[in-house]
């Protein structure tokens, strides 16, 4: 498997932020509706640097003017804290970097019974379920990103949204 280019992750983060804001926090993924929104943390960096140049935290971070201002100033998204719900599950986690490292993952409430093995199975199953949903979201991004609509519709729409016209 070839390596994913680093800029694709930042574009994925931007697309996800925009798509969730446009869709009222709802995405249809593989025919199933999931609720997903950018939660209380976004970190931005300059394209030429690894270090964060702006970190926004707190309620309604995704709608903060500072977030769009960071993008308007040429920064790109380095980390994104996401809240994701489907069926009766809710996850909170931060995605970062080109390999989608996960930090601060809060799993849904899970049965706390049984021995270590039982608990490990349940928690790993929950992580795999999350990974499957993330994969489905990424495939949706990949389909859009490689299609004609990316340049013709999506990017202009994102650009307009960033300057407040959409």
């Amino acid at each position, binding site marked *: *498997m*070839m*390596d*994913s*280019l680093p*800029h*694709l*992750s*930042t*574009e*994925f983060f*931007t697309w996800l932020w925009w798509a969730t804001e446009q869709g009222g926090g709802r995405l249809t993924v593989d025919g199933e509706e999931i609720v997903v929104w950018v939660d209380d943390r976004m970190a931005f960096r300059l*394209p030429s640097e690894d270090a964060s140049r702006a970190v926004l935290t707190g309620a309604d971070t995704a709608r903060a003017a500072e977030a769009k201002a*960071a*993008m*308007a*100033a*040429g*920064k*790109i998204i380095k980390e994104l804290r996401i809240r994701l719900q489907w069926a009766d599950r809710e996850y909170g986690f931060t995605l*970062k*970097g*080109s*390999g*989608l*490292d*996960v*930090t*601060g*993952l*809060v*799993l849904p409430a899970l049965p706390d019974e049984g021995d*270590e*093995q039982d*608990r*490990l*199975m349940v*928690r*790993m199953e929950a*992580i795999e379920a999350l*990974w499957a949903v*993330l*994969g489905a979201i*990424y*495939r949706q991004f*990949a*389909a859009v*990103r*490689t299609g004609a609509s*990316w340049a013709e519709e999506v*990017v202009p729409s*994102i*650009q307009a949204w*960033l300057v407040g016209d959409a």
Partner: protein
Amino acid sequence: MGFLKGRLNFRRYRVVDPLPDDFRDRFEQAFTEHAFREKSVISRGEETMGWVRADNLLETDFSNRDRWLYTHYVMAGMRIDKKTLPMPLVRAMVEQRVAVWCEENGRARAPASVRSDIRTNIENDLLARTLPTVKVVHFCWNLPEGWVLFENTSEGMNDRFRTLVRNSFGVALEAFSPLEFLTETPELVDPLAAAGMTVMGGGAR
């Protein structure tokens, strides 16, 4: 115990090499050979590294497979010990003893070799009385599906982990690429991998 409670941080890896049929025996042997062992003497900044069981960082007996093999998951910890010294204190002690040496020897300045010996003695003395900083990072390896979660995202820790895995188990790990999400839609892989950068915000990307 790693992965069993609380918030999680992880980097995901794909195991590049296939598992041998006798992997249970080999893993037990690898864990045992590369288990964490305390050194009687550890120099300043030196790291001691090896595997410990996930249930207790002092446990390095891997003969009971129930303690590291959970159906199809292997879980254990990478322990790293390191001793560091409070350098302002070291410098102050060196200056104090150098001053004593100068007074005893009727000299205005101590030769570099004397200063170096004094410093080495002080550091060795302090290191012998200093407890190491201890860090344990757990990993969980799904054997049939060939992926590993390592509970840390720093580059340094991940470099050490990949090296220890390769040296212990003889397998290479590759960091997860989002392109792996596209195994069900392989037609998207090449176009996506070739996609150039998009200018979305205010600057060139």
